[in-house]
């Protein structure tokens, strides 16, 4: 198999040693079918065991390995050396604090995923223990694409509105909320809209669309958020008209 020499320029930061991040160069002999993750693993195994980064599945499904590759938020296990120039810059995901090297702090987005109530809410009596809900394929199709999110957080790294204002709930969490709103088994939509259509919710999105462009799983959070804005606007009037005395 052919070997291609790649210059990896990797952002390093050790809070115990460095004032600020800096770049370290590694020259990596890559096999032609390697992903950038393989190149990083080569560095870790052969050149520098101190490099810190997250990964696990190497099959685009665990969502650990999101990083900036030549400025673009990407999964390193899904970005192939064959599609890149000889010089590749790898940085931790933009818009997140850097914990160490390529590892970022995810507390904020984890809290946001939690905040949007991403679980089935039932107002009716709970379903019978041994009886499934029926759901037509069409009903499943409504939200199926939104279930594909692997929480890689590339979309947050791409979204400037999140970068500018960390209170914004942001693309993946909003898309997740929409996934449950659209699920025929769920009855929690109006509760959720109260959270999502509040100040830091959907309105903070100005439809930059970068989130959807970088999403490795084609979740299209941008679309979900726009649909939620429509839902939010409708719900607003519904609440206004339904409860005339209600000040909100």
């Amino acid at each position: 198999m052919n070997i291609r020499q790649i210059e990896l320029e990797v952002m390093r930061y050790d809070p115990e040693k460095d004032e600020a991040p800096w770049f370290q160069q590694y020259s990596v002999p890559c096999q032609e079918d390697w992903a950038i993750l393989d190149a990083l693993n080569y560095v870790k195994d052969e050149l520098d065991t101190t490099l810190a980064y997250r990964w696990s599945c190497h099959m685009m499904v665990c969502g650990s390995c999101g990083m900036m590759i030549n400025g673009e938020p990407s999964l390193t296990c899904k970005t192939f050396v064959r599609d890149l120039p000889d010089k590749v810059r790898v940085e931790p995901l933009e818009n997140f604090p850097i914990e160490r090297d390529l590892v970022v702090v995810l507390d904020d987005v984890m809290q946001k995923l939690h905040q949007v109530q991403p679980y089935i809410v039932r107002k009716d009596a709970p379903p019978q223990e041994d009886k499934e809900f029926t759901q037509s394929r069409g009903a499943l199709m409504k939200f199926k694409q939104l279930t594909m999110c692997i929480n890689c957080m590339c979309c947050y790294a791409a979204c400037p509105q999140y970068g500018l204002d960390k209170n914004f709930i942001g693309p993946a969490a909003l898309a997740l909320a929409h996934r449950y709103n659209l699920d025929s088994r769920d009855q929690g939509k109006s509760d959720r809209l109260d959270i999502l259509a509040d100040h830091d919710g959907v309105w903070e999105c100005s439809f930059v669309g970068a989130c959807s462009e970088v999403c490795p799983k084609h979740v299209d959070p941008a679309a979900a958020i726009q649909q939620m804005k429509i839902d939010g606007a409708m719900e607003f009037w519904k609440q206004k008209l339904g409860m005339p005395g209600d000040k909100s």
Partner: protein
Amino acid sequence: MSRRPYIRPMSQTTWYMRNGRYKVYMLREMTSFLVGFYTFLTIYALATLASNSPQVWNSFLSSQQSTGMIALHGFALLYFLFYQTFPWFKLAPKAMPVQVGEKTLPGIYIVIGHYIVWAVLSAFIFWLAGVI
């Protein structure tokens, strides 16, 4: 405590220079200046009409005739098409996907639909205005 998460600064005023995607977005958002300008220009035209006098209207028309204005409108037209009309149509299926049975209608149909409506509507306006 050994943790000291490093926060990369993000310029509040020039962040969009970071990549082409953001620049295109800013250009798109700035179509709002054009919308503002043309609505007020139209309101101004209405004001002249509201005088209910042909002279005032005609002098308004002639005040609008200059190479500067030609350049401005020409530029505005192209800018508006490329940064408002076309993107808006392109993004329409995202905001309002149409599902038929098990499949979502491919976005392209919705986009094409928009272009057709646009053509008809524009033709109607031109017809009203006596251009065609």
